[in-house]
């Protein structure tokens, strides 16, 4: 499909008096990994929920694959929601179901197949996200944090989505597991040509995976390539990319103004 896959235009979100987003606009191109960053309370999760159609913005539009999800009825929206996969910050696996049942759930809901076929499709997803097949019969409480994230990704991939939304995919993982997850995300994007939108706090993940970045500051959004954002002069962004924790990984390019 030509043109942007996701168009967010002039989105305003407010809770009572408090305005979270005041005219947020950006576009996501097919096949890119798009990062959303911002301070705590800057409305990253609210923005993600708006893009998922879980929350209707107070004004503005969100267009996914050419269809305006903010002007849709419930029924139509439910159809559209099946076209993308989501992972939540804490996995949000259903605790009463095994990993295999978690992955089967969206499949069984969408189509009627034999048990054996579900099984084969679940096996594919587990292989894709790099989970050992022994994990299939386990319950979420028996899994480590990294495995929960992978299982959640397996469930998100169950219906062959074209867009994948990841909320803090590497939060709470050790650096090795986080790096492995980054590799997995890149690999899936390259092999399946998925479009991925991720909210993240992890500078490593941002550097390694994202093509473009949206920074939520002052109720607005600043969108640029990673290099562009790093060079931005907004005080918060400077702090974010050049603070004590970031300095070790980003060497700031020479100042273009030659100061």
């Amino acid at each position, binding site marked *: 499909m030509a043109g942007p896959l996701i168009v967010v235009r002039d989105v305003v979100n407010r809770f009572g008096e408090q305005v979270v987003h005041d005219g947020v606009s950006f576009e996501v191109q097919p096949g890119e990994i798009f990062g959303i960053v911002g301070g705590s309370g800057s409305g990253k999760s609210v923005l993600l929920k708006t893009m998922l159609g879980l929350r209707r913005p107070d004004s503005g539009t969100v267009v996914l694959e050419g269809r305006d999800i903010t002007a849709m009825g419930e029924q139509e929206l439910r159809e559209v929601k099946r076209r993308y996969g989501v992972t939540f910050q804490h996995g949000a696996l259903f605790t009463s179901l095994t990993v295999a049942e978690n992955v089967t759930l969206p499949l069984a809901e969408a189509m009627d197949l034999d048990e054996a076929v579900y*099984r084969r499709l679940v096996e*594919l997803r587990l292989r894709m996200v790099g989970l050992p097949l022994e994990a299939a019969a386990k319950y979420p409480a028996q899994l480590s944090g990294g495995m929960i994230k992978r299982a959640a990704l397996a469930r998100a991939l169950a219906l062959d989505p074209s867009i994948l939304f990841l909320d803090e995919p590497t939060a709470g993982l050790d650096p090795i597991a986080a790096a492995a997850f980054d590799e997995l995300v890149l690999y899936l994007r390259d092999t399946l040509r998925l479009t991925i939108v991720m909210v993240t706090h992890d500078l490593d993940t941002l550097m390694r995976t994202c093509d473009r970045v949206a920074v939520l500051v002052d109720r607005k959004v600043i969108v640029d390539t990673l290099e562009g954002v790093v060079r931005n002069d907004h005080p918060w962004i400077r702090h974010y990319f050049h603070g004590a924790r970031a300095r070790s990984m980003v060497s700031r390019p020479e100042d273009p103004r030659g100061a």
Partner: protein
Amino acid sequence: MVDAPALEQALAELRVAPAAALTVRLARANLHDIGPAWLLHETLAGLRSRGAGVTIEGPVPEHFTYFDELLARDAGTWAPAGPPTAQERLAAAGRAVESRLRSWYEALVYGGRLVESAATAWRSVKRLRIPSIVRHMHETGVQAIPVVAVIAMLISVISAYIGAQQLRPFGAEIFTVDLVAIGVLRELGVLLTAIMVAGRTGSAYAAELGVMKLNDEVDALESMGMNPYEVLVLPRVVALVLVLPLLTIVADATGLIGGAFLTSYLLDLPWSQFVARLDAAIAPTTFWAGLVKAPVFGLLIALTGTLRGLQVRESSRELGRLTTVAVVQSIFLVIFADALFAIFFLEIDF
């Protein structure tokens, strides 16, 4: 993915077909449809392993190389769950017995720690946590007044109505007052209050403590050197032991009012006569025979709710299960204790 069922049907026929030479020509391959591609790949691999010569004409789906890559990686095995063997059944039975025994043991430990906390907490006013007790009394007592009052009134109206109907043929309608008064004061008032509180507060205690357990809040308390039994359990137990008698008095009062209302309406009995008859009907001990049971019921409900809450571990499924267990068990215990009280009162002629 939407075509998967149709494709699967076609593939199923292919799978059972006699092994022979097969040529696959793919008309179109959708970019995202990795699920159906996997099913095709698996089927073709199965046919190849049975000795069929499979050739793919035209473009090979690009996912196929990805699949070969995936399959080359060792992912372990996913053993299909067969029917349980005798050994597994024995193990399951053993686990069930063990968990039952452990539950008793935990109840014992819980009781011991609670008694220990209670024994030491009396020594200082601060450790009694009066504000916490008051808050729980408000939540479990004051806020429960409307529902308890309405239920008691309705039940006494129902029993007065049925009593009046049954007694009228004998010209003994006046004994409806006895029925209502003794029924409400001795049994119905306290029992219904306890059952309502078990459903309302027993579940709340279990759920509150269970969520705190899941959020590691109980561990956090302990790490700060505080005794969770003293901070969390004791105020709840004390509050409910104090509150249930008070709620019972409310239930008794509204129950009698309901009875008086119905007898005045149904039997044309003026309220003054109702009171006079009431006076004659009840012994001085009738009211107390109901009320002394209330603190015991409160204790049983609070202990069951808090114990089940603290037993929650690992998952939210446990939380739901143990909350249900808390309610069912506390209602059972209340009724069981009431039966014991009935026998006891009969023996001592109370």
